[in-house]
């Protein structure tokens, strides 16, 4: 297995559209990295430059020790799973899976047969070798596409939104399955998706892309809990975002003035006063005034603290059950809508109730606007 490195990779289309704008990333051998971002952010173009379907206008792409920036796709040894699987319709499943090995010319017929059987075993579809793609369900085609990509023992696995065309249940099943197979083989994997939930649940690291650039690269929990930018906070999961100006900053904390409220947040980077910033507050970090914390009963000390800092009075406008948790929408007296998510069974508020929610400054993140 090999590492993949992109250095200043840029793609500018004729006509001047800048699809990818100087991205850098080193993907370690065996790592599962997800490129995630809204459509048009350049993630698919980046993947296609790794696969060799697009040539960077600038920068370098390396797979293992080889600079492959200008190598054609068929000399790169990557295995790709396409969005619509692209199983060759005029070939059987066996022929599809054997295709890469036959093209390489390095395998005997016996080896190919054995490898095809092994691959079908790996994706748990041993009996389908003689069928044609149109006789398989979407989920089965997905597995075969994976088997075909892995059969010639590529250096890296590239996945271009492979789960997008599956229904929700199957998608979740395939997420687990894909990760299992990837870990079993230990293959370096680049996964492209616009689905932030998929990115968060599947990756070792994820790279959030926007406008052709990487906004942030890191493990899922880090990117989720500690977003580098307003975009990342907003794109991954749900976030309550308070745009304002730092009124004062001291000892790793800052007080931020927004139009309607003042909010206190951690400020580890020590951003200076009078800077335009956004405070990111995740819904599950809020709690209702006087309610129990997740761990136990609230102490009177924290209750009084909440009274003065980061407490928002308002009316509950909407409530829905998400299964293990409950989501509330609260309209503050200042006219701001807050999303609050609490574990089921902790609170008994209903739409129309007046209430106060609070959040610890420790649970707030400050990003420059």
């Amino acid at each position, binding site marked *: 297995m090999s590492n993949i490195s992109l250095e200043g990779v840029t793609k500018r289309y004729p006509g001047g559209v800048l699809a990818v704008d100087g991205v850098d990333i080193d993907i370690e051998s065996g790592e599962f990295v997800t490129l995630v971002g809204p459509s048009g952010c350049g993630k698919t173009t980046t993947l296609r430059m790794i696969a060799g379907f697009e*040539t960077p*206008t*600038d920068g370098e792409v390396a797979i293992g020790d080889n600079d492959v920036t*200008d190598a054609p796709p*068929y000399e790169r040894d990557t295995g790709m799973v396409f969005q619509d699987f692209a199983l060759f319709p005029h070939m059987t499943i066996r022929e599809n899976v054997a*295709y890469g090995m036959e*093209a390489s010319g390095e395998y005997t017929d016996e080896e190919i047969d054995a490898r095809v059987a092994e691959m079908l075993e790996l994706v748990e579809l041993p009996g389908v070798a003689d069928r044609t793609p149109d006789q398989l369900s979407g989920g089965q085609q997905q597995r075969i596409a994976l088997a075909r990509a892995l059969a010639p023992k590529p250096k890296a696995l590239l996945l271009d939104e492979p789960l997008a065309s599956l229904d929700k249940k199957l998608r979740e099943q395939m997420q687990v399955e894909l990760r299992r197979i990837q870990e079993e083989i230990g293959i370096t994997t680049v996964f492209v998706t616009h689905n932030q939930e998929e990115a968060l649940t599947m990756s070792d690291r994820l790279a959030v892309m926007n406008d052709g650039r990487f906004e942030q690269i890191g493990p899922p929990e880090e990117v989720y809990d500690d977003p580098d930018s307003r975009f990342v906070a907003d794109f991954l999961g749900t976030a309550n975002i308070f745009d304002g100006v730092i009124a004062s900053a001291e000892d790793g904390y800052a007080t931020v003035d927004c139009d309607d409220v003042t909010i206190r947040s951690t400020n580890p980077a020590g951003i200076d006063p009078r800077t335009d910033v956004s405070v990111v507050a995740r819904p599950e970090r809020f709690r209702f005034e006087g309610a129990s914390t997740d761990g136990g009963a609230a102490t009177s000390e924290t209750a009084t603290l909440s009274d003065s800092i980061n407490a928002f009075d308002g009316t509950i406008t909407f409530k829905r059950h998400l299964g293990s948790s409950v989501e509330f929408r609260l309209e503050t007296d200042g006219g701001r809508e807050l999303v609050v998510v609490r574990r089921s069974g902790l609170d008994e508020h209903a739409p129309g109730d007046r209430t106060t929610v609070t959040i610890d400054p420790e649970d707030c993140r400050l990003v420059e606007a």
Partner: protein
Amino acid sequence: MATESVSDDGADESGRAGLKANTKWFVLSYPLFWLTAIFLVPLAMLVVFSFWINIPGGQYELGFTLENYVRFLTSTLYLGQLWLTIELSLVTAILSLLLGYPIAYYLARMDRPWLRSLLLLTIISSLWVTYVIRAYAWQVILASGGILSSFGVAVGILAEPRSFYPGYWGLVVGMVYVFLPFMILTLYSSIRNIDDELLEASKNLGAGPARTFRKVTYPLSKNGIASGTALVFILALGSYVLPRLLGSSAERTLPVLIEQQIMSESNYPFGAAMSIGLIVVVLAFLWVMIRVTNVTTGSLSGSDEIATDGGPDVAGSVGSSSSGVGTRVRSTVADAASSVGLTRAVSGIGAAVDSVVTTVDSTTRESIIWVTFRAYVTAAMAFIAVPLAIIVAVSFTPEEFLTFPPGGFSFRWYVAFFTDASWMVALANSLGIALAAAILSTTIGGGLAFALDRFDYRWETIYGTLGVLPILVPPVIIGVAFLVFFLEVGLAGSRTAIIVAHGIFYAPFPFILVSQGLREIDRTYEEAAMNLGASPVRTIRTITYPLLRANVISGALFAFILSLNEYIIAWLLSLFLVETIPIQIFNQLRYSYPPTIAAASVVFIGLTVVVMTAIDRLSGGIWE
């Protein structure tokens, strides 16, 4: 640093781009060679020839004179025949539209797939049988000893046998018979493309069948109406065989006059000038059609006013310019000159149907409509199928002359056909020419389609137009242009000349089919193959070609069958030296009617049907 890397990459890019540019021009050069050097050059020579000076007796002199054009445009004879040609074509197009629409609609909406395939195959098969045989079939029907006349006498409508041809209406019937299939197929595909859900939505919203037709089906099939009408009009304009075999001397259309100038008078400059005149008519019509179709497209989005505004405009110009000759049907023609003008006619019929049928309950209403439909479609299908069936029937006559019904059953004329050396030479010529022409067509059309699909060219649209242009030029003009060209080159009167002319003339079929195939291939299949390590050549061999094969072979078979059945181009280029089956049949029709012609025709029809079925099988129902 930054500038360095930019220049590095720049050099690299241009290096690879250079390689790619070489491939791309290399791929394009082959089809472009044929379509310019061997197609545009003869057409250009035709233009040049039209200004040369004719010396009576088959000679001409290099020079510049407008005399040929002056003669063409000032002679009441030639102008009159020009208007007649246009009028005949319009009548044919409009009759085909009126007769064809209900059939196309029925075929598109019927729910028995096997019957639909059968009907479509019947229509399509008759389409490819040479005009010569089909005109001959109508001679058999319309002649004084023919079927219609005998039937008339038997029933007592006619006092004595009479002939319904040669003459205007006999010719119109023959033209409609020949061109109706084109109209039906064009309309069929456009009606078939209308999503069933749209019709269900309309019914769900409370619209009855007539209203659904008027408000949904008809507007959505307008483009089909426009292209079908245009297609039939252009084909009719260029038609030589039918006016020659079914028309009297009064119905000598422009293609007939052109052929006469070339083959009988050997007046090449004047023939060339008339050819240019015919091309101008085609181009003018196409121009009007494109403009009108654009307006029609606009009217799809709701503004009916624009469409009806365009109608009288076009109709008016056609109507006023055809003063003098086209008195017979001119007013009707003018009213319905464009598909746009037809809007009102069709809506009128729809409204009438609506008001009649709203008095009955809806189930009865639908069944009445379908029963009427079925009766009509049966009659129309008979019109399409019976003439060739009659040829088959008379081919088995044991008698010396053509009679219907045949007075017995015998294979003697088949024996005569297969034992006659001249028929066998003609058959061998026909097959050999068609095979070679099909290969040429497929390489030209397929090559161009591939080049245009895979690479970006500056003048892509022009090359694309060049790919379909040959088929838009009336065949008689192709024949004259190539004759002029091959006379200079010294190949006139050879099989090679006919092969090249057919190969280029029918290249649009493989071009269109292969282009369509390439468009339909999902590019990710090829990307997947390359990702799995397949080189470009391996990718084409194992992925692209197999996915494209049906289209390539269908294209080749189309070219084969069309070349097999082509008469006028082969005839003009033959210089009486090469015989093909259509030429042989045509020549014999001029002098006598031995039943061998019928036997030859049946063999030929059989060949055609076999090839058509092969195409159908291959493409898994290309007609869907």
